[in-house]
């Protein structure tokens, strides 16, 4: 379980408070209006921002002081999830070790994970030679290989078409959540949340609300969510 204890993020006149926990092995969606701080909150969990106050705790261990790479976390950003000058194999291989030289065994692992996300035989290509959907799959392959228990998704599939996006979301569910990983995903689309999220936390009005089971939340949305959904 990931816990945020009295977490406070402050930036100029923006501030966000979070006091909540995320259930292990589940997918939790963060939903809320633009500028509410969804990505900022994710960045703080990942270790890119230093919170003004509070702690981030994973499996009873305080990880607040750890650097991003030291945290048990994989993250996918909105863009720049692949190094353009490296091949797909090299990019995915970075999930195994922070270097480019892979053993034969590691190369086999990369090939297998590429196969599992539908990119068999594309390892030698550069990202620019792949379609948008394929690039997302490659990034996801790296997350799979990195084998960290907590996965943060900052709308990495936002640029994809609806069918491709749904494919990717299903892949996240099958390959990450169903294998026991904890997923926190930012989304602005309630359909995404309804499709795969077990619970939803609303980010609005300077706070991150505690997650509520997805169906229950959308059947009876709190005022902030109702405003966002336009109801």
């Amino acid at each position, binding site marked *: 379980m990931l816990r945020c204890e009295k977490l406070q*993020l*402050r*930036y100029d006149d923006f501030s966000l408070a979070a006091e909540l926990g995320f259930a292990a092995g589940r997918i939790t969606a963060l939903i809320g209006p633009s500028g509410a701080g969804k990505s900022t909150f994710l960045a703080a969990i*990942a*270790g*890119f*921002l*230093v*919170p*003004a106050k509070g702690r981030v705790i994973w499996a009873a261990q305080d990880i607040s002081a750890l*650097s*991003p*790479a*030291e945290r048990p*976390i*994989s*993250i996918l*950003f909105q*863009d*720049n*999830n*692949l*190094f*353009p*000058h*490296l091949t797909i194999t090299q990019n995915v291989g*970075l*999930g195994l070790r*922070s*270097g*480019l030289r892979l053993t034969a065994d590691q190369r086999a692992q990369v090939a297998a994970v590429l196969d599992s996300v539908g990119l068999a035989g594309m390892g030698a290509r*550069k*990202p*620019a030679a792949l379609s948008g959907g394929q690039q997302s799959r490659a990034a996801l392959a*790296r997350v799979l290989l*990195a084998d960290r228990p907590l996965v943060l998704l900052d709308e990495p599939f936002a640029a994809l078409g609806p069918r491709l996006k749904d494919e990717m979301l299903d892949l996240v569910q099958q390959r990450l959540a169903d294998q026991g990983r904890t997923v926190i995903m930012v989304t602005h689309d309630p359909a995404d949340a309804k499709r795969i999220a077990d619970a939803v936390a609303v980010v609005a009005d300077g706070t991150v609300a505690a997650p509520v089971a997805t169906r229950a939340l959308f059947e009876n949305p709190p005022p902030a969510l109702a405003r966002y959904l336009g109801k």
Partner: protein
Amino acid sequence: MAHRAITISPRWPGVLAGTLVLVLTLGTLAAVALRAEFATGLGVADWAAIRFTLTQAFLSALISVVLAIPVARALARRRFRGRQALITLLGAPFLLPVIVAIVGLIAVFGRNGILNNGLVWAGLEPVSIYGFHGVILAHVFFNLPLAVRFILQGWLAIPAERFRLAASLNAPIGKILEIPMLRAVVPSTFLVIFLICLTSFAVALTLGGGPKSTTVELAIYQALRFDFDLGRAAMLACIQFGLCAVAAVIAWQVTGTDAMGAGFDRTVARWDMRRPVLDYLVITLAALFLVIPLGMVVLRGLPGLSQLPSSVWAAALRSICVAVGSAMLCCTMAVSLGLWGGRVVAVIGVLPLAASGLVVGTGAFLIVYPFTSPSDVALLVTLLVNATLALPFVLRAIAPAIAAVQADFGPLGASVGLTGWGWLRIVVLPRIRRPLGFGAGLCAALSMGDLGVITLFAGQSEETLPLAMYRLMGAYRMEAAAGAAVVLLGLSLLIFWICDYWGRRC
């Protein structure tokens, strides 16, 4: 809330590089000042020199930048056979030793030059290159290539995706893409050229026509060489630093921020390609202006090639070694400082431009002398000084690229645990390969042609190619010297081309 200082790269290499720069600029100045007895204030002649220095530097920089914009734009938009070779060749004047370039300019614009012979043949009045306009002409000749390269880099740095976006929106490309880019690139380009011209010495003197074209640097030379007045030299050098500081602050005030973001390295066709004739006309004019004087240097020097003594080849080899060493050191320093980033680095990056070459040389001499014989360390000191003096140009090319890599891929690098050497080797160096190659070539070529600090240190066995050329001239061997100039020109261009080509080959 603070962004976490993600310790992707350690800071000590940058600190080390910065220290070296400080020692060789402010440290050498201090070394000179410490030996000085301060007596004199500024005379009328000094004020006249300061006025002249500022005026010519301002106009030289302004004209160079204004002319460079259409040339860079034309080069950015057109693809034609030999374009890359042309870009390399257009860079040549900046790489030349002053004395060689002046010979080329005089062969075209001088009293007995192509232009005036043409005018007289056509029954027109000849024009004189000598005077204020001659100084400006020569400075534009030297610095237009630099301005074109910097601004061209700005254009090429706009991701092709942005042009596609702008085209799809039918938006005015100039307004939404090019003007913001120019706002970010032009002030610093202007500053660099302004500072180069601020410390100009031989150009202003040779083409200026007389003492009214006296620069501060000449006054420093006089103080050091003829009056041995170290105090005066130190004071004038401080004034040069002061002028530099003011110029730098003004330039930073008007510099826009460049927020183009990353593209995906795709070559995407452009949609704003009307009026090709005008573009080609601009390119042709610039090429003629820059290439004809070079051609004259080659033409005049070819007969002298057969007269070159063997010592010239030894000197050439020595120059190549110094150039390669300088380039490697300079790039290491630039990358270290670039990874460090921030305002301090920006200051350190322009400091060498404001330094008087003579004061740096004299100060280095005073620092070195108590410990060892100056000629023993002549090549080493030359290497260090050349690397430092070229640093502003190399840093100018590399730092924005590093900053872009950090901004675009820093989070990804941090999340996959790439730090220190791995981050540098796997991500930064491949991503900045193009500006790195350009920077290395620039430093190597500048170092090849440099005739600054070596003259103060070198004995016979430390002779570099420019010094050998100068000594040939001093011994009446003008033809052989012209031949040596061709060798120098050829080697400078070759070494630049090799580095630049390495950067572009992906």
